[in-house]
């Protein structure tokens, strides 16, 4: 059973550039959430996607955008990079919709993260 995967592992960009990070959720999961973790801090919620729509958004500027594909995988895009965007970007997957009864999973499973460095 494949867990959450993210690519790339590391990325170095310069100020003003644009970056795209990718995430494949755990098998059977339909919801993807993105978090930003600055050095020495706890992760902060960026946004969440379900059924290819953004469902919740944290306190992040419009430079941060995302997308979810029909296979539930997701991308995080950051435009006009700033030095302060340097962080570990974490993707988490969960199950929102459960067929034939049951209940959504409360647990979010995290990928290994993408370390973004902006110079």
């Amino acid at each position, binding site marked *: 059973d494949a867990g959450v995967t993210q690519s790339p592992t590391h990325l170095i960009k310069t100020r003003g550039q644009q970056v795209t990070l990718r995430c494949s959720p755990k098998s059977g999961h339909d919801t993807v959430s993105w978090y930003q973790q600055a050095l020495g*801090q706890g992760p902060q919620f960026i946004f969440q996607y379900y059924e290819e729509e953004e469902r919740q958004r944290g306190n992040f500027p419009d430079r941060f955008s995302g997308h979810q594909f029909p296979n539930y995988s997701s991308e995080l895009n950051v435009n006009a990079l700033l030095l302060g965007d340097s962080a570990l970007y974490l993707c988490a997957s969960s199950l*929102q919709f459960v067929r034939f009864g049951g209940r959504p999973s*409360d647990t979010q499973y995290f990928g290994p993260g993408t370390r973004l460095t902006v110079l």
Partner: protein
Amino acid sequence: SQQGEEDPQALSIQEGENATMNCSYKTSINNLQWYRQNSGRGLVHLILIRSNEREKHSGRLRVTLDTSKKSSSLLITASRAADTASYFCATAIFNTGFQKLVFGTGTRLLVSP
């Protein structure tokens, strides 16, 4: 912004000792979860406790939740060097049927052989 704070920020113990970490939060929650993070990599889910539960056990882990005080604690018994990591509490906030996690600042645990 962080939901709450964890205490202590750093904890150093010897193998075999118990480690206790505390977490405080600010708003009403649906559940509270504890995660472990090794060397700045991905988060590993440890245990979830719902708002109507007071205590939960999983192996060497014991979690308590006091919703009246908006606080939780994580106890790791008989610690091992492999337990060295950062530990985060995360409160689950529901909005229109969707859950997001709001993390604390974390406790860095060092277990020495």
